[in-house]
């Protein structure tokens, strides 16, 4: 509670929503990574999970749909001392924001992206998203989705992120541990949180209660270490969780700082808008 804006409660999330677990595990991960709360900047786009930063008592940017990573990039490069974390959802990050997601990963900019993936558009009332499983129902897929879904962790890993993991809301301990690692990784970190939306996804897909959904996550998830030894048939319908990439390497902000040191003998001119004099 000490991190929350108490005067904004109650929140807008539906009963049984996974956003609470995502936020709670984030605070745990942040504490164990010993992040200075004053340097924490949360950035988000549009959607249910993008409302999370507004309840946290830190600097936050609630931006336009899909563009959170672009705002976060400017914030991080503008002041590399900030710890920049993006909260986003499957629609926000992978549909309208898909291009920014892969380019953020490619440039390996030192931000942490926490993607709460509930396989549906919640804020707009239950339309299918780019991660909705084939055959799943949504208000824009009344006959079941015919689209192929994205595998987000694999997509971001392929694009070049230096830390990628996926857990579900049924794995709070592993999740907070992963968030800790992501925050400490000096590069683009992507943590996918498979989450329940009983209100829209569950109701339309015969998983009416949050408990049904969390049980389904538990029953269907297979750790990536085990999954690597299983056949495609054995893995059908399974949810692969675990750490997909952990490969720290030089990141974008450091490169920008290095160039500045090379060219003018000092690091970046942070907060310079508040100075009287810019002449060197």
């Amino acid at each position, binding site marked *: 509670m000490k991190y929350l804006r108490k005067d904004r409660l109650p929140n807008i999330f539906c009963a049984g929503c996974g956003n609470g677990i995502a936020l709670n595990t984030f605070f745990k991960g942040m504490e164990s990574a010993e992040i200075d709360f004053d*340097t924490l900047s949360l950035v988000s786009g549009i959607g249910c999970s993008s409302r999370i930063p507004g309840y946290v008592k830190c600097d936050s*940017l609630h931006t*336009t749909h899909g563009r959170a990573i672009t705002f976060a990039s400017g914030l991080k490069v503008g002041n590399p001392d900030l710890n920049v974390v993006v909260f986003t959802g499957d629609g926000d990050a992978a549909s309208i924001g898909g291009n920014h997601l892969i380019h953020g990963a490619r440039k390996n900019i030192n931000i942490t992206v926490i993607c709460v993936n509930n396989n549906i558009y919640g804020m707009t009332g239950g339309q299918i998203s780019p991660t909705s499983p084939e055959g799943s129902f949504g208000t824009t897929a009344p006959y079941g989705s015919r689209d192929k879904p994205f595998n987000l962790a694999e997509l971001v890993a392929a694009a070049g992120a230096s830390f990628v993991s996926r857990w579900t809301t049924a794995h709070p301990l592993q999740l907070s541990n992963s968030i800790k690692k992501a925050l400490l990784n000096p590069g683009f970190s992507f943590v996918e949180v498979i989450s329940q939306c009983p209100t829209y996804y569950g109701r339309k897909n015969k998983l009416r209660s949050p408990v049904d959904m969390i049980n389904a996550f538990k029953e269907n998830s297979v750790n990536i270490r085990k999954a690597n030894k299983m056949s495609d048939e054995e893995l059908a319908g399974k949810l692969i969780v675990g750490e997909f990439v952990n490969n720290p390497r030089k990141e974008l902000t450091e490169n920008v700082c290095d160039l500045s040191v090379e060219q003018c003998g*000092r690091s970046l001119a942070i907060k310079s808008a508040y100075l009287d004099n*810019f002449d060197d």
Partner: protein
Amino acid sequence: MTEELFVQGNEACAHGAIKAGCRFFAGYPITPSTEVAEDLAAFLPRYGGSFLQMEDEIAAIGAVIGASWSGLKAMTSTSGPGFSLMQENIGYAHITETPLVIVDVQRGGPSTGQPTMASQGDMMQLRWGSHGDYEPIAISPSSVQEFFDFTIKAFNLAEEYRVPVIIAADEVIGHMREKINIPDKVEIKKRVMPKEKPEQFDISNPYLPFKAGDNEIPPMAPFGEGYNIPVTGLTHDERGYPDSSDPIAHTKLVSRLCNKILNNREKIVSVHESFCDDADTIVISYGAPVRSVFTAVQNAREEGLKVGSIKIDTPWPFPENQILKAAETAKNLIVVEMNLGQIVHEVERVAGLADERPDVHLIPKIGGELHKPNEILSEIKKIS
């Protein structure tokens, strides 16, 4: 010491940005604005600044807004198609009161149109491109020196009013080479911090990041200073908390955002009048066509015609009082612009307020070429 350079308009703009204190640029290459980005890619690291080439224009303006909140003066440059892509985030910058500068070096449209040719086809997009109500500031240079000077002016206005400011240039000015003077010192507007430190606030006396004083403009702290600022594109109260379903809250916020520009219109607006005192016919122009208009008006005077000129430096906010004054005295107002008629609508609107309405004429030109002085002169003769 003043430095003299012989440069393109786009290069002059990059020099002006550095002088004004710009330390962040994010952009996506697009003709005819690309030299602004290329020069800043070279300049910024030498001043401790950062340059990012983004994946598209939406990303560019997003990064610029983020960088502004990190405490930097930040800019992007683009042309019509890229400017269209930026519109949603320009609205975001207005509602969140984020200072930044956008250079729009206009080219022929619609769509991909004429990438290498000049136009003033974005004048209404500058005004109304984003959704909702807002009051933009746009300035139009008509020489390479002005492209330098107006870039500094744009950064100063952005900081003073906490708004995105647009430099509405055109391909002629962007690619034309002229001698410019770069003064050693220029006047810089720095960003205003809140007076109180974060620790002076508590639950009974909370920090109100969007509470404006009498001037309607709140001071702005950067992220990372402990102020814990919640910034949202939703309609918000003075704390920054979303308050999007209350009609009164929305009216209060958006009215203030518009009024902070409109109430300072006379301070922001800049026009240059020549030969207007006794003129029967006044030619109104902005940007590159100003150059041909000057010659045409001088030639008309030599021929004994009572013709004057108004050069508009700031198309937005529209210089209503100055144009109204002209409309009260002249019989004819002629608008010269490189489109089929955009700013002429504003002139017609204002002329309609005059006691004795003058006739409003348009000399349009599209295709990418500048009006020739004798084309303007022969139209003046036909009209006056």
